[in-house]
C-alpha cells in the first residue's frame, strides 16, 4: 500500500509539471497573450507596457523559470482587471462550483446508475433499448442547450424556479459558521443548472454502469455463484453489484472533476458565480493572467483530486490494501 501511494504521488508530480509546462508552451506557441488587449485597439506603447508587466519581453528560459518559481510559491498570477491574486479569487469562487458540481454529480448517479443496471439486467430488451437511447440523448445534447430549454420551460413560462444566480447563501473560508449551511440552502436556484450539467454525465454513467455490469454478469465467478444455486436476486445484489461498483465509482469520481471544470457555459447562462464564470469574465475583460491562472488552478485541482481518488481506490480494493 505504501509503495502504491508513493508511486502514485510521484506520478502526480510529474503530471503536474508536464501540465504547467504544456500550458506555458501552448500559450506562447499558438498566439500572443497581449493580443487580447490589442483587439480593443490600444496603441503600441500601451501594449509594450503590458508586455513588460507580464514579463513577456524576457527571454524564454527566464520566463519559464519565473513561471515555475511563481507556481511553486503558490502564485498563480494576478488578475489584471481586479488587481487581486488569481488564487484568492479562485478559492473564493470554488465552493460555488463545487456545490454545483456535487449536485450535478448526484443527479448523474441517481439518473444514470439505476437505469444502467436495469439495462444490463434486462439486456437487449425493450428496457435496454430505452436506456441506450436515453444515454445517447444525454451525450448528444449540449449542456447549455438543456439549460436553456429548462430555463424557458421552468423559469420563464412556468415561473417555478429562479433563473439566475445562486441565491444569497455564501461560503466564506474565514467564517466557519457558513461552512455547513451553505451546501443545503437555496436549492431552488441549484436545480436547473445542476440538472443541465448532470444530464450529459448521466448518459455516460448509464453506459459505464451497463457495460461494467454486463462484464461482471458474464464472468466466471458469477457463473459459479449461479451454479451454486444462489437465488438470483442475491446474485445481483450481493455479488454483481459490489464487483461492478469499483469501475463505476472510479469513473464517477473522475467525472466530478470534469464536471466542476466544464461547467463554464452553464455558469454563464445561469449567472452562477463559480470558477467557470471567472474564465468567462477573464475573456470578456481581456484579462489573460486571470484566464491562465484559472486554467492552472483547475489543472492543479484535478491532479490532486486524481491522486486522492487513486488512494481511496487503493483502500477499497482489497487486493491493493493488503499488499505491501
Amino acid at each position, binding site marked *: 500500500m505504501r509503495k502504491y501511494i508513493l508511486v502514485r504521488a510521484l506520478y502526480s508530480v510529474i503530471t503536474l509539471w508536464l501540465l504547467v509546462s504544456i500550458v506555458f508552451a501552448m500559450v506562447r506557441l499558438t498566439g500572443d497573450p497581449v493580443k487580447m488587449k490589442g483587439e480593443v485597439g490600444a496603441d503600441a506603447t500601451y501594449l509594450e507596457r503590458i508586455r513588460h508587466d507580464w514579463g513577456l519581453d524576457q527571454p524564454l528560459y527566464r520566463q519559464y523559470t519565473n513561471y515555475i518559481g511563481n507556481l511553486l510559491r503558490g502564485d498563480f498570477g494576478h488578475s489584471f482587471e481586479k488587481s487581486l491574486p488569481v488564487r484568492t479569487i479562485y478559492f473564493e469562487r470554488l465552493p460555488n462550483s463545487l456545490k454545483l458540481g456535487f449536485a450535478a454529480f448526484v443527479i448523474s448517479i441517481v439518473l444514470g446508475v439505476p437505469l444502467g443496471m436495469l439495462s444490463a439486467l434486462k439486456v437487449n430488451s425493450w428496457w435496454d433499448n430505452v436506456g441506450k437511447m436515453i444515454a445517447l440523448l444525454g451525450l448528444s445534447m449540449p449542456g447549455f442547450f438543456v439549460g436553456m430549454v429548462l430555463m424557458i420551460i421552468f423559469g420563464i413560462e412556468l415561473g417555478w424556479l429562479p433563473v439566475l444566480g445562486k441565491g444569497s447563501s455564501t461560503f466564506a473560508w474565514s467564517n466557519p459558521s457558513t461552512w455547513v449551511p451553505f451546501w443545503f440552502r437555496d436549492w431552488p436556484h441549484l436545480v436547473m443548472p445542476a440538472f443541465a450539467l448532470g444530464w450529459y454525465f448521466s448518459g455516460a454513467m448509464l453506459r459505464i454502469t451497463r457495460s461494467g455490469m454486463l462484464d461482471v454478469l458474464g464472468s466466471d465467478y458469477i457463473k459459479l455463484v449461479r451454479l451454486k444455486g444462489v437465488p438470483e436476486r442475491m446474485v445481483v445484489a450481493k455479488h454483481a453489484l459490489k464487483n461492478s461498483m469499483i469501475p463505476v465509482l472510479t469513473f464517477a469520481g473522475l467525472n466530478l472533476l470534469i464536471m466542476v471544470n466544464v461547467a463554464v457555459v452553464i455558469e454563464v447562462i445561469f449567472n452562477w458565480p463559480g470558477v467557470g464564470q471567472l474564465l468567462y469574465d477573464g475573456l470578456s475583460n481581456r484579462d489573460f493572467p486571470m484566464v491562465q491562472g484559472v486554467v492552472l488552478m*483547475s489543472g492543479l485541482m484535478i491532479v490532486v483530486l486524481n491522486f486522492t481518488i487513486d488512494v481511496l481506490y487503493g483502500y477499497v480494493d482489497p487486493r491493493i490494501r493488503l499488499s505491501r
Partner: protein
Amino acid sequence: MATIPVRATPIGNLSRVARRSYRIVAEIPSLPLLMLSILAFVAVFAPVIAPHGKLDPVKPTPEQCQAKFGMANCPYVDNVPPFWTRGGTFDTPLGTDFLGRDVLSRLMYGAQISLVVALTGTLFAGGIGTLLGVLAGYMGKWWDQVIMRITDAWLTLPSLVFAILLSSVRGPGVWNVVLILALVFWSRYSRAVRGEVLALREREFVRLAEINGIGKLKIIRRHLIPNVMNTVMVLFSLQVGVAVIIEASLSFLGVGVPPPEPSWGLMMAQERESLMEGKWWLAVFPGICITMLVLSANMLGDWLRVRLDPQLRNR
C-alpha cells in the same frame, strides 16, 4: 415434456443468399446515416436551397412593417416568431433573429460551419494523435515514455477549459477553432492507438517483416497504420460529436466562430437576452440542430464500435 419446437422464423425459410443479405441490411445504421446525409446535403447545398441569405436581413412586407413599427417601410423586422405562432409567416418559417435575418437560412449555412470545423478539427487531431500513438507504441522505450507522459498530462486538462485558454491567445476565427480542436483532442487518439500498436507489435506479420529486415518506417506505413484504422475510425466518429459541442460552446462564449457567421452556438448566444422576453425559437432551433448532428455522429460511432469489435457483437 418431450420436444420444445424450434421457433420458425420466416427468415429461416429463405435461401442462404437471401438470409445473408438480410443480415447485412438489417445491421446498417440507417437512421444516423440518413440524418448525416441530410445534414451534409444541407451543408453543401445551402447557398442553393436556403430561402434567404445568411447575412442580410429579410426584406419585410409592408404589413409586417406596419404591424411592428407603425410605418409603411422599414429595413428589417426583428424577432418574427415561427410560422405556426401568431405573427409568423411562411416566408421566414422559423422566424427571424434580432437583426431581422431568416433563422432557417442561417441554420442551413450554420451546418456548413459546424460540419467543416468539426470534421477538419477532428481530422487533424486524429492525424497527429495517431502518428504519435504509433511512434509511442512501436518505437518503445524513450519514445513511449515521453509521448505517453505528455499525453497523460494533456488528457488531464479539461477540454473546454484548455480550448478557452488557447482561444484567448489566438482570438476568434474559424480556422483558429480548427487549430484549437486539433490541439485539444489529439491526446485521445494517441492513447488508444498506442494500445493497439502494442498488441499489433507482437503479431506474426509484424515479426516476420522485422525478421526480413524491412525498415521501421515501412512497417509503420504498411502494417501498423492500416491495422489501427479500425480503432481510429471509431474514435473519430465519436469525437466528431464532441468537437461539434466544443465549437458550439466556444462560439457561445464569443471566442469561437465570430459574428456575423451563423455558427449554431453563436446563434444561441446572441439570443440570450431575448430568451427572457420569451423568444424561445431563436435558441431552441440551433440547439436542436446541434443535437441532431451530435446524435447521429454518436450513433454511427457506436455502430462502428460494435461492428469492429467482435466481442461486443452480441450485446
